[in-house]
């Protein structure tokens, strides 16, 4: 369960716990095409981490493995708050909130029904699910659209509804895969602002996958992925240092992705 809102002691408590996400020695191939090579990184509780990589770097495959859409072959492992995904998928998935790259709301039913369906998939009582759904929709300023069909929402509203749905189960780790794809600048900023706010106020750990460098906040922890390999990891200054003292993040990104191809 996520710590209570604005609970500093709870945030401090989780900061001493196991990593929110620990990926180790993760390799994966689609047939003969190797897409991940020995990937390893961590996201700590309360941390906003950005998985930065160009299209085709292996981000979505990594997400599919972290969310157990399919299993990674040994010795690769995915641990959520210390729980090995392959051994205890239920316990691990129960702590995850997910926003996928593709829109995943059912367009023919209402926003609230989409959220209630998600609550049911996690075994939540309907009344509790409804209470939480309205709370989350209020936080993304969509409470007045709860009864609208998803088809009637704009792209930005749909994305915010997906974030609200991901938070319905009060996850401790939120994964977002290219969550701002197809959105205009104000909508992208709104989604980003909301998620970062959750990090700082509620101690939620976030892994934000993107190919957009401008989505990396200065204080974020960066995991740079290229050609299926983690090329650099750390704070922005640490990543710059790992990219042969690159002057800025775009330059570091260009150097590290170029070296991956070379």
């Amino acid at each position: 369960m996520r710590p209570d809102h604005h609970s500093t002691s709870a945030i401090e408590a989780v900061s001493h716990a196991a990593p929110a996400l620990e990926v180790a020695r993760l390799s994966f191939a689609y047939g003969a095409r190797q897409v991940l090579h020995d990937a390893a990184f961590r996201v700590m509780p309360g941390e906003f981490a950005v998985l930065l990589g160009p299209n085709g770097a292996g981000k979505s495959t990594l997400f599919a493995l972290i969310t157990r859409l399919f299993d990674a072959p040994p010795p690769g492992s995915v641990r959520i708050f210390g729980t090995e995904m392959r051994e205890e998928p239920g316990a691990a998935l129960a702590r995850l909130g997910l926003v996928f790259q593709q829109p995943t709301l059912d367009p023919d039913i209402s926003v609230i029904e989409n959220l209630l369906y998600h609550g049911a998939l996690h075994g939540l009582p309907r009344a509790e699910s409804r209470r939480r759904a309205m709370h989350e929709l209020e936080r993304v300023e969509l409470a007045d659209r709860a009864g609208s069909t998803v088809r009637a929402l704009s792209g930005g509203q749909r994305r915010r509804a997906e974030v609200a749905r991901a938070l319905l189960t009060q996850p401790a780790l939120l994964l977002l895969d290219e969550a701002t794809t197809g959105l205009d600048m104000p909508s992208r900023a709104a989604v980003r602002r909301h998620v970062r706010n959750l990090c700082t106020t509620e101690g939620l750990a976030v892994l934000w996958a993107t190919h957009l460098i401008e989505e990396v906040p200065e204080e974020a922890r960066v995991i740079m992925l290229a050609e299926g390999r983690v090329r650099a990891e750390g704070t922005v200054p640490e990543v710059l240092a790992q990219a042969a003292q690159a002057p800025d993040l775009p330059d570091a990104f260009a150097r590290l992705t170029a070296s991956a191809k070379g």
Partner: protein
Amino acid sequence: MAHGGIPLSGWLRCLSGIVRREALRFVHQRGRFFSALVRPLVWLAIFAAGFRFVLGVSISPPYQTYVLYEVYIVPGLAGMVLLFQGMQSSLSMVYDREVGSMRVLLTSPLPRWWLLFCKLLAAVLVGIAQVYVFLLVARFWEVEPPLIGYLTVLPALILSGMMLGALGLLLSSWIKQLENFAGVMNFVIFPMFFASSALYPLWRVQEASLPLWYVCQANPFTQAVELIRFALYGQFDPVSCAAVTVALLVFGGAAVLGYDPQRGMLARRAAG
């Protein structure tokens, strides 16, 4: 029984949520409801009227007298509703996967076999509602089984629907794209329907072609139709019941394997 800290009541809420969503989708897609109803009615009103004097139906169990051809084909048409519903369900799963909403289902903390079972049962319940509407409308064509038959046919519909839905689920785990679903129509639905006892008694097929008769006998849809036929007249056919159960276990087991993350069929499909 707890999985991911979710108690048994949570499992049932999951089932209820999936059934509710399936029902909502069906209600919102009115065209789907009407086509589901019109399809068997076209067979009953047009095909049966045309063929009633061509295809003779002798007295054979469960019927105790000569019956109208319309009466004979109604169990087969009820089976056809379930067959199409099972395939429609698999079509929707392929669609769900393409648009991404399948991921929402598969990343639930509950076990995948349970999620697939819920999905299957939800589709079957929607199919059964369609069958009952069809059976009521069929009374206008003087297809009037005993009233108790409407009750005794329910378990047969559930079992047959689950078996056909499991087949659809299995197919959905192998189909890469929606476009491939046309192949399912050609290579699964039509052969299963026509090589069965839905439209003609199998003794007629046996007279025409012995190999085809064997095929019809081995067709699980034939067994489902016979199970429904007997149940609709308050009788139990143990052979067809056993055959449908075995087919359900085989198709259901294979479908669970198809969606098993360790077997990685989803991953292989993602590889293109």
